[in-house]
Structure formats: C-alpha cells, structure tokens
C-alpha cells in the first residue's frame, strides 16, 4: 500500500481538474465528486497509516530536473510523521468536503469552491509526502495559493480581497526565508533530501553558524505559514473566507504545516541550540500574545483564529523545547478539536447569519447538536482533564519545563489560563443567556453538516488517549521509533505540572463563568483595570497599524521615490541626450550654406584628419 501512497494527493487533484473543466455542468453534483475523491484519499491514508505501524519507512524518487552535474529529484516518503499527517489532512479534508455541501448550499460558485478545496487538499497532501525540501517548498507555495483562493472566495467583498492578498504576501515573506534557508542548506549539504541533510548535519560537515542560520531561516518560513508573531496578522483576517475553509486550512492543516516543517527537519534544529531557543521563545510569546488578543475579540471566528495562533505557538514552544512528540501530538489533537470548533462555529453562523458574538446568546436550546459539540471542543482546547487537549497540552508544559525554560513554562501556563477563559467567554456568550438581537429562523444544520462535527467531537475526546501518562505512550513511541535523536516518546515530568495545568484551566473557566454566565463579576472587569489595555487588545496591539505605517508606507514611499527617479533622472538623461542631438542637428543645418566650396572644405578637412591619424597610427587598431 505504501508504494501507492502517491495516489493519495492525486485524487483531490483529479477532483480539482474535473470540477474546473466540467464544474458548470455538474452544478450540485460537484460536491459528490469532491467528496468521493477525498474519501478515496482518506481510505488510502488510513491503509497507509496502518501499514506504517508495522512496516519501515518507504521512500522512492525519480529525477525531476537536471542542472549540469546536479540532479534534483522528486518522490515521496512515508515515515511516521508523514503517515500521521496524511491521515489528519485527508480526514479533515473529507469532513470539510462533506460539511461544505450543506454550508455552501446555494452559492452560485459552488463547483469552484469544491475545485479550490481539491486543489488545496492536493497541495497539502503533496506537502506531507515530500521527501525533500525543494518538493516541500513547491507544495508549501501551492498550499498558500489554495488558501489564497479560498480566502478570496467571496471575491467581490473588498475585505476578502484584502485578506487574500495579505495572506499571500505575508506568508510569502516567510516563504522567502524558507527559500533562502533551503538554498543555503543545499550548497552546504549538496542535497535537498531530508535524509542527506541529516546525514551531513550529523557528520559535522556543516558549520555551527550555518546550521543556526539555515535553521532560523527555515523557521521564518514556518512563522509565516503558522501565523507566528510577527507574521501572524494574516491569519485572523483570513477568516473572511468561508467557514469550512477556516476549519480546513486555518485551523487543522495548512497553518500546522509550519509546525510540520519544523518537526520534519527536527534533527537540523536539534543541532543548533540558538535555533531551538528562538523557536521556543517565539512560540511561547505568540501563545500568550495571541491569547491576550483573543480575550476581547467579538467576532466568533476571530476569537477562534487567535486561539489557533496561540495554540500553534504552543506547538512551536514544544518543538523549541525539544519536545518533538509533544508538538506533533498537540498538532494532531488540535487539528481535531479546532476543526470541530470551526465547524460548530460555522454551524452557528449558518443558523444566525452573523459572526458577532455580541448579537448572539441563548443558542443552547435552539442548536441542540451544535451546542454540546461546541462545548466538547471548548473543553478540549481549554485542557480540561480526560479530553484530548488535556494530554497534549500537558506534554507541552512538561517539555517546556524539562527543556529548562521556566519563564517560557510560566508564559505557557498563563496562556493556558487565558485560553480557558476566552474559550468559555465565547461559549457562554453564544450559547447561554438571552438572545441579544432579533434572530429568526434559527434552526439546526442539516445532517451532512452535523455528521462531520460529531465525528470530530468523538475524536476530540478520544484522540488524546493514544499517548497518555496513564495508558502508555504508544503514539509517542511509534513516532520516534528508529530515530533516537528525536527524543523519548513520553517525557516524565513532575506530577505538579499536570495539577497546575488542570487548576489553571479550571480557574479560567470559573472566571469566565462568573463574568459571562452568572454575571457576578463585571464584564468590564478587564476594562476596569484601564481602558487603555482594553483598547490595545481590541486593536490587536496595533500590529497591523504598525506595519501599515512602517513597511507598507516605506514600500510605497520607496516606489514613489523610484518613480521620481524613473521620470526625472532616467527620462531626464534621455531628454538631455535628445536635446544635445537636436542642438547638434540645428547647428549642422546652419552649416548647410549651400556652397559647394564649403562642403568641399569640410569634407577635405575631415579627410586630412583621417589621413593624419592614419599616418600617425599606421592605420590599424592595435
């Protein structure tokens, strides 16, 4: 089965092509095309995953491009991480395909939507199958395009257009980091292939500074894709896209690609303490930074988006602290519960046609299925014991502590508190209390929307049990099998960390309960401490404004400066030359007196000049 893993990405590609060419004729049937092909991918992925449990890594390659003596290859590789990612991506993609059939019903560009989804799924699956950096980069960019197209799906909305553009350009900034890092690494190791790179790094053929440099550059790529600080601003804006897209791309798969990349290149990062520390610091900072913004947002999807950024920061923190398993584990559980949250949010939006949580409320009774499912997701992300998020978050905290970063550990703990708080704030505001605006025709979503949510809800509960301190760390052991460098499947940590994590999250829930359910604590408790803080948070620390005033203003200014040069200096030079030539011409025409004698004299003087030069130089250019 593994040797046929290359088929997995091809199914969605096929779906993309079919829908692009015949979408107009297929109309509603487009959904079935997409669903069937992704189902095929999912089945194959499951088969591959199960086969990978028992068999070693499979890899194959062929020559893709010849450059003189350099032979660049393409191919695919099925190792533990890849197999796991294949499963996650194809599962979420399949569920989102199913869900969208209901959610996008009635949109006139229904087939196009499915085509784009196919393209994205193809790229994402291709990304996780890549055995070398170049191929990774190729799919990395394609994933970006898929995301770009889907964010801008409602193309006649100005916000969607701006968000799509922003997403593409901001991730591209990160991609350039990856691009440079990749090329530098290539010239150091003479290969793009992961295995060759690790070999070269192990043998010490690459200097320490170079490892650090390339590792950080590659991490910049991950920063862009995974929405880490300071390139995070595109991710919340990306919520302009249809909600299923947010679930697929901006929660479960693409944004996790950054984490995946760091994980895939983990041996490289392990070789550089500085790079690891950078990752850990950025991860931790992003986690708390995004969580704090999430505290005050009022758009349901934006809250989830900031929570995604924050959770991705968690994963980065785990990887940066050397907790390979913790990072990947959280990546998996997060994929499930965040996809669930987004789909549930989508279901809510579908029902009430607004995204502003200030206008919602009291939906628990109206959405009998969505409500509990949303609660499951909220509990999971808050790290309430016995749900998947609890185990993976615990692993991360332990990894941070054991990695020797007490400050980062503390930040992560605070972020956990905030997460619990804002998630339950969201939950209480949406589902409890009284409706804060007129809401007509509120109804539960159709089956094809609830089915994916239920499946994800189940996974959000149970996915954690594959790797727990109590029932064995089967998952972690398998993940690091054959790669001792990646660390242990499970890191033993002091028991108080688990207790602390639990207490913190429960505390967060309790505060949210007081403020938004019982209303015994003033809702303006935060703003009470100072309007300034609230304003700053509401404006996302003014990062966008900062970019607007610095980078974009600079670019524009520089462009206008260059245009000034183009119009006045370059054109001016040309005009000057033209003027000189015209002047010469005028002088020349004045000299045309019409007198043969003058002409003869001038011609003769010219001849004499030539003759003298000839006589003096011998007439041959030396």
């Amino acid at each position: 089965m593994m040797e046929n893993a290359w088929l997995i990405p091809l199914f969605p590609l096929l779906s993309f092509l079919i829908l692009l060419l015949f979408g107009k004729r297929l109309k509603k049937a487009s959904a079935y095309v997409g669903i069937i092909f992704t189902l095929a991918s999912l089945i194959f992925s499951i088969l591959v995953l199960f086969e990978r449990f028992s068999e070693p890594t499979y890899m194959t390659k062929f020559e893709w491009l010849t450059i003189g003596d350099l032979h660049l290859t393409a191919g695919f590789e099925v190792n533990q991480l890849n197999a796991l990612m294949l499963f996650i991506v194809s599962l979420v993609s399949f569920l989102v395909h199913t869900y969208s059939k209901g959610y996008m019903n009635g949109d006139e560009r229904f087939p196009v939507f499915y085509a784009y989804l196919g393209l994205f799924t193809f790229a994402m699956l291709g990304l996780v199958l890549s055995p070398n950096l170049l191929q990774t980069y190729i799919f990395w960019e394609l994933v970006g395009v898929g995301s770009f197209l889907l964010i801008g799906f409602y193309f006649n909305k100005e916000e969607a257009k701006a968000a799509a553009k922003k997403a593409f350009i901001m991730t591209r900034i990160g991609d350039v980091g990856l691009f440079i890092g990749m090329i530098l690494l290539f010239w150091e190791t003479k290969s793009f292939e992961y295995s060759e790179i690790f070999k070269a790094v192990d043998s010490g053929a690459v200097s320490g500074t170079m490892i650090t440099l390339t590792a950080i550059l590659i991490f910049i790529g991950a920063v862009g894709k995974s929405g880490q600080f300071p390139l995070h601003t595109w991710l919340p804006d990306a919520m302009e896209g249809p909600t299923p897209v947010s679930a697929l791309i901006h929660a479960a798969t693409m944004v996790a690609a950054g984490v995946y990349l760091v994980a895939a290149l983990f041996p490289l990062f392990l070789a550089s303490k500085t790079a690891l520390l950078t990752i850990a610091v950025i991860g931790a900072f992003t986690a708390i930074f995004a969580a704090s913004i999430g505290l005050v947002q009022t758009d349901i999807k934006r809250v989830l988006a900031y929570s995604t950024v924050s959770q991705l920061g968690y994963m980065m923190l785990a990887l940066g602290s050397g907790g390979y398993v913790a990072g990947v584990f959280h990546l998996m559980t997060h994929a499930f519960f965040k996809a669930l949250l987004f789909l549930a949010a989508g279901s809510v939006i579908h029902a009430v046609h607004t995204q502003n949580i200030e206008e919602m409320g009291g939906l628990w009774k109206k959405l009998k299925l969505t409500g509990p499912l949303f609660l499951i997701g909220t509990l999971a992300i808050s790290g309430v014991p016995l749900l998947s998020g609890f185990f993976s978050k615990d692993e991360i905290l332990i990894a941070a502590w054991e990695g020797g970063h007490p400050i980062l550990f503390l930040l992560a703990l605070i972020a956990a508190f905030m997460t619990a708080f804002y998630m339950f704030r969201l939950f209480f505001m949406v589902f409890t209390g009284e409706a804060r605006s007129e809401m007509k025709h509120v109804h539960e979503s159709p089956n094809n929307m609830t089915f994916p949510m239920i499946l994800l809800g189940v996974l959000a509960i149970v996915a954690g049990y594959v790797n727990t301190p109590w029932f064995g760390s089967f998952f972690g052991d398998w993940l690091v099998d054959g790669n001792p460098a990646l660390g242990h499947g499970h890191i033993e940590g002091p028991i108080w960390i688990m207790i602390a994590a639990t207490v913190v999250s429960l505390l967060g829930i309790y505060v949210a309960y007081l403020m938004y359910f019982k209303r015994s604590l003033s809702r303006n408790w935060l703003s009470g401490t100072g309007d300034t803080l609230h304003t700053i948070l509401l404006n996302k620390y003014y990062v966008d404004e900062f970019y607007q005033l610095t980078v974009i203003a600079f670019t524009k200014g520089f462009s206008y400066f260059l245009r000034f040069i183009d119009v006045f200096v370059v054109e001016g030079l040309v005009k000057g030359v033209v003027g000189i030539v015209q002047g010469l011409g005028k002088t020349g025409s004045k000299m045309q007196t019409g007198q043969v004698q003058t002409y003869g004299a001038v011609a003769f003087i010219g001849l004499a000049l030539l003759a003298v030069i000839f006589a003096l130089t011998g007439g041959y250019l030396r």
Partner: protein
Amino acid sequence: MSSVPASAFLALALILFCIGLYGALTKRNTVIVLISIELMLNAVNINLVTFSKYGMTPSITGQIFALFAICVAAAEASVGLAILIALYRTKKTVNIDEMNTMKN
C-alpha cells in the same frame, strides 16, 4: 641611374596639388577655382608619369593614362566654363558665394 630621385618628383606633385587644392577651396572667383582644379589634375599627371618611369614595373602605361587624364581635363574645362557662363547669364556674377542653390 638618375640623380633626381622619384620622391623629388612626387614631392613636387604634392606641393602643386596642395596649392591647387588651397585655391579651389578658398578662392571666390569661380574661374580661379576651375584653374586651381586644372592645377591639381596636372599634379596628378606628374605622379602618373613619374611612376611610369620609376614605378615598380616601369611601362608606358603611366604616360598613356596621363594622356587620358589630360583629355578628360580638357573636356572638364570646357564643360565647366560652359556652366560658368550659363550661370553668369542668370546671376550676373562669378562670385562663388552666390552659387548656393544647393541649399534650397
């Protein structure tokens, strides 16, 4: 054999040619310009005859060419003068400054 070297004749021809040229390019009187051109032709003839005697392969051909040149010069002088007179008839002057119909 001869005490006068070929280069002496050539130098003489050069000097005459230069005089003719100077006259042709600076004189205002059209007749003098024509005369100067004759002088230049004469200088060329000296060269032809000189090479006929002192050239790499001396032969009578040089002299024959000189004859032809004289012939052409005679024709040129007659036609040139005819043009001059025709012009004079219309412009009433032989001043070369006035002969600038090439300008327009």
